[in-house]
């Protein structure tokens, strides 16, 4: 080994612990940089995961079957449901029918999106009906009841137990009892949606057991890409989308947000790197004579370089280890005490092991890089100038 690392480590360790205040200052800046990366990225990832999960849970299956091009409804719904029920990886499915209408409460009225579904099948497929904030969920035979999204209820001053008249797109209308208020966190949905049983909607709209979409829940959502061709072949359908395609807009938003959070993390890292770089540089300048003596007694340039680089490594190891701990506990605390958020209700970071690995690696590399220049200066110092200042 060209450099005696044990000797370099011995001196570096003694040197960094000599001045407790400087040690605390540098270590703190590394701790905050590391913890900052973990918390910011945990928050970003948590928010994205919540948004995606929420979307999948309430408005998308792992696979969604749509009508063929130029068709409004999926044909042969009964046969397709039978075939779906026979597929091994299909855990559940839920046909939905979309229509439009106008909901009125006395003199107030609003255009609404009608979402008709089979409550039993929907409950097995998504968590949409778990998102009722007031009142009760629908049953399949609730022919006189509807659920109203919370903003629509606010706009029309509707509450659970009230009656409202729903005019369908075919001109028919009927008075329904508001059985529950629902809030999903999806802005579009929450602003103007009425949910009703599929049978009732088909009857009012004079459709023959029709559906606009069939949501499919697989045993694992990651199977979606692989299972899509199977569904297409077995059911003879051509228009199938995976949950990733359905949440594409969220994923591109997530990408943009991740870039933003990377900038925030980078600012913290640069601050830590500058602190470490400056402190080690000042240390090198203050130790000019000692560096000269070290060289005079036989230390080579690369040994001196290693000593000061090793100091950065030690600062990094200590700061990153504590920073990992601080970041972990901060994320866990925020998981338990989430921020209030208007769309999702709350927003919290999520902890993943890769957050620790990424934060540790990036911070260590940055801290070491910050020390390269001062360590290089130390290694290249002229002995005579260093000792006598000539």
């Amino acid at each position, binding site marked *: 080994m060209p450099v005696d690392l044990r000797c370099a480590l011995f*001196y570096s360790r003694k040197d960094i612990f000599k001045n407790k205040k400087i040690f605390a200052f540098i270590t703190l800046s590394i701790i905050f940089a590391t913890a900052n990366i973990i918390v910011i990225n945990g928050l970003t990832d948590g928010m994205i995961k919540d948004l995606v999960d929420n979307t999948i849970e309430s408005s998308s299956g792992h696979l969604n079957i749509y009508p063929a091009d130029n068709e409004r409804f999926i044909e042969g719904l009964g046969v397709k449901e039978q075939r779906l029920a026979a597929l091994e990886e299909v855990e559940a499915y839920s046909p939905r029918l979309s229509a439009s209408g106008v909901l009125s409460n006395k003199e107030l009225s609003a255009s609404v999106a009608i979402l008709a579904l089979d409550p039993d099948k929907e409950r097995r497929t998504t968590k949409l009906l778990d998102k009722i904030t007031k009142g009760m969920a629908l049953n399949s035979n609730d022919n006189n009841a509807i659920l109203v999204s919370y903003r629509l209820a606010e706009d029309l001053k509707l509450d659970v137990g009230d009656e409202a008249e729903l005019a369908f797109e075919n001109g028919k209308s009927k008075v329904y009892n508001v059985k529950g208020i629902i809030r999903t966190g999806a802005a579009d949905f929450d602003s103007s949606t009425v949910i009703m049983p599929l049978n009732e909607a088909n009857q009012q709209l004079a459709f023959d057991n029709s559906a606009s979409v069939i949501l499919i829940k697989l045993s694992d959502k990651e199977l979606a890409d692989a299972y899509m061709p199977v569904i297409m072949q077995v059911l003879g359908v051509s228009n199938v989308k995976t949950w990733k395609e359905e949440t594409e807009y969220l994923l591109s938003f997530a990408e943009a947000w991740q870039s933003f959070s990377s900038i925030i993390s980078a600012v913290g890292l640069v601050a830590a790197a500058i602190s470490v770089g400056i402190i080690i540089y000042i240390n090198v300048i203050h130790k000019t004579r*000692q560096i000269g003596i070290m060289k*005079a*007694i*036989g*230390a080579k340039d690369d040994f001196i370089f290693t000593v000061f680089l090793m100091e950065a490594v030690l600062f990094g190891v200590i700061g990153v280890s504590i920073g990992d701990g601080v970041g972990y506990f901060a994320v866990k605390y925020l998981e338990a005490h989430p921020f209030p958020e208007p769309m999702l209700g709350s927003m919290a970071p999520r902890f993943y092991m890769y957050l620790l690995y990424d934060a540790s690696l990036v911070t260590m590399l940055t801290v070491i890089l910050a020390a390269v220049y001062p360590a290089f200066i130390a290694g290249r110092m002229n002995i005579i100038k260093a000792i006598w200042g000539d």
Partner: protein
Amino acid sequence: MEMIRTGNLKKSYMPGKVEVKALNGVDTSIEHGEFVAIMGPSGGGKSTFLNLVGMLDTPTSGEIYIDGSDVTKMNSNTRAEYRLKHIGFVFQFFNLFNELTAVENVMFPMMLNKQSGYKYRAKELLNLVGLGDRLHHLPSELSGGQQQRVTIARSLANDPKMLLADEPTGNLDTKSSIEIIELFRKLNQERGQTIVMVTHSPEIGGMADRIIHFRDGIIENL
């Protein structure tokens, strides 16, 4: 047998626009086991000579043989290795590593030289210089004389062929100065250590076997 031999040794500096000839053709030799004092007025070339034979600096021209090896042809790393193994330095301003205790300061060159048993030997050397009871004191907890003794113990760590001392008593009181020179004398007599010491003091210089006088970059024949 010659420990140090220089031939027409020259060293010039260009601190500004005017060239300064610090050494202007020095021919000398120092034998194994000699205790030599280098004296002369400030700017006479004493320290420059010591830096060159100690391989801390490179000459502008001329020859330097240490124990028969032409050291002017060595590269930076080889010179560092040679200093580590064969030369011990004692400087005027003690120059200990402030963050290391006395025993750690003495251990350091041995660790650098990858020697085994360095802790035991460091204690032995500190006992030799009379600091067996100050092993774990930091330099700031030692007097000037004690610090200089730690420096001497450190310079002996790798059992060097020669000790080079640049005004080792320059910052010490008379009593401490005499103790240090007596220690040099003891090392010279008991261990056969070659010692080359720069000093301004005639009393200190007078305790050496031989005095070489430098003036205006050359050896002055008195």
